[in-house]
């Protein structure tokens, strides 16, 4: 038995060595940014900020992953430096040593109902709705709004993909659901007047934010500062004049796959986004963190009383403070 257990230990040790081989770290001036999703028109601002950071000497490499989780994994594993997403759950539950350092935009979802059946929030009392997934942001928005309007939703079903829910709404399979900006516009274009978009008040949770390990933020402050500054500048420019989004696209040749016809959609998208104040003009910070705590704890993604959660456990606001000091707060 002694022989056996020694062998077991050796095998285990061998496996451990194999699995924990360290990954090479990036050299100074390099920044590998991991997108948790394929960049679309909603990423123009971030992409433009990245291009400008490149112009200022930060050697950025983009890595596109198909899940936000993977972006966080890549950051922790050292295969990427900066991730995009809202990794509150991971920070709290898995205790990963990453911190959010700038908010890019806030969530924008549109509860849509078939006007034949419902007109306003009150009509949804006890009615079935479809959202993205259990514990998703879309579910949290619906629950939050139901709570605000003093109603109780009926059965909540889960249908991943805004475009899938859009088609189901058009086909009549769904009577009430929630979609993103692009699909809401598509619904309005394909069936004018058939659907009513219910108002969503006071929703300010992060949709996308930048995060990195605490060590990276400390050791690469100069690069991080440039990125944060450019992010705030592009957000301010677009909010002031949404048409610059298309200029950014042309200047930096962003999203070439989408072709010229996407320009109209980009202008529309950023007009709406700017009007809704969805782009973070000062990078979020403690205020954004407080909004996120409230929203994500309602969504069940983080635990504990939102008031008792500490900003420092989730955010590193140092870079943001420096950028705000330089550019002024808006």
């Amino acid at each position: 038995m002694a022989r056996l257990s020694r062998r077991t230990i050796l095998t285990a040790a061998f496996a451990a060595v194999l699995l924990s081989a360290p990954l090479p770290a990036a050299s100074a001036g390099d920044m590998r940014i991991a997108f948790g999703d394929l960049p679309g028109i909603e990423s123009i601002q971030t992409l433009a900020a990245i291009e400008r950071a490149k112009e200022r000497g930060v050697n950025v490499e983009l890595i596109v992953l198909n899940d936000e989780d993977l972006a966080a994994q890549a950051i922790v594993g050292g295969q990427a430096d900066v991730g995009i997403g809202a990794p509150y759950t991971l920070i709290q539950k898995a205790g990963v040593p990453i911190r959010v350092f700038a908010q890019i935009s806030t969530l924008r979802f549109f509860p849509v109902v078939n006007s034949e059946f419902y007109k306003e929030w009150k009509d949804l009392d006890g009615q079935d709705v479809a959202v993205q997934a259990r514990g998703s942001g879309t579910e949290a928005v619906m629950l939050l709004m139901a709570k605000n309007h003093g109603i109780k939703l009926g059965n909540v079903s889960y249908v991943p993909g805004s475009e899938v829910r859009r088609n189901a709404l058009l086909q009549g399979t769904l009577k009430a659901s929630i979609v993103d900006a692009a699909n809401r516009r598509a619904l309005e274009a394909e069936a004018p007047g058939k659907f009513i978009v219910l108002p969503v008040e006071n929703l300010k949770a992060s949709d996308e934010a930048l995060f990195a390990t605490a060590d990276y933020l400390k050791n690469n402050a100069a690069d991080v500062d440039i990125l944060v500054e450019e992010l705030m500048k592009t957000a301010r420019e677009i909010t002031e004049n949404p048409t610059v989004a298309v200029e950014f696209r042309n200047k930096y040749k962003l999203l070439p796959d989408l072709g010229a016809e996407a320009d109209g959609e980009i202008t529309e998208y950023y007009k709406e986004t700017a009007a809704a104040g969805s782009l973070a003009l000062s990078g979020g910070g403690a205020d954004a963190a407080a909004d996120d705590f409230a929203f994500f704890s309602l969504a069940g993604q983080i635990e504990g009383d939102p008031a008792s959660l500490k900003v420092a456990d989730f955010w590193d606001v140092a870079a943001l403070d420096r950028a705000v000091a330089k550019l002024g707060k808006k």
Partner: protein
Amino acid sequence: MALSIRTDGEAAGLAASSSRGTTGAWWEEPVVLRLVSIAAFAAIWEVAGRIPVSFAFPTFSDTMVAFFGLLADGSLASAYLSTLQPLVLGVVLSAFLGVGLGTICGLWRTGEWLLIPVFIVLQAAPVAAFIPMVTFVYGIGMTAKTLAVIILALPVIVLNTYKAVRNVNQSLLVMCRSFLGTPWQTVAKIILPDASPVIFAGLRLGVAAGFVGVVLAELLITPTGIGDLITFHRSRADYAEMYATIGSIIALSTLTLVFLQWVEARVFRPEKRGA
């Protein structure tokens, strides 16, 4: 995952109790060796989880605790209730349809030329890539999921049956003819019994593919049942629960295959009994 190995142990137990005697020392007993293998696996997992290999990699003990937690609160049971519906339906349909089509293709040239290329393509195709296409046609309900199971399970069953029927022992066929067997007797008494080992192997592979299909469907179409438990716990960063769910479906799949092998040996293949 640990559970899947336990089922291997049970398989060995079955074999051991029925055939192999008690020759050799106790540590050479298959049961003991399998148990040691499970223990070694669990130990490696535990060590890897404690390093940790990744923040998303729980230890073996955490995963087991999570597994019993899921079992106790009933979420695993209700998840399986919904996962098993498309799975059982899809596998049963594939089994009957697959053996039927495979036999026809094996016996009838025109059928072979019409159908076999389709199934060869289906078997070679990366099916996960066109599961989303199924949703465009059949929506997001039970039909789409059952179809996903069938798409994965059917080709392997058809192809195995077809090959088995085609490669039936010629001297048996000659014997049947010399005894003036009717065509129906040739199929029922010679071809199918002689082809049955390979047909059963195809059915087992088909069931395994059906498990792949149902999990893919639940991850890619709508998260229900097991797929819902996996995606939900992943989104909540409850990795132990996520691994426990994944382990449970692997265990169930392995158990089912072992059970099928046992049924085959006991009920349909007397010559294999005790082998």
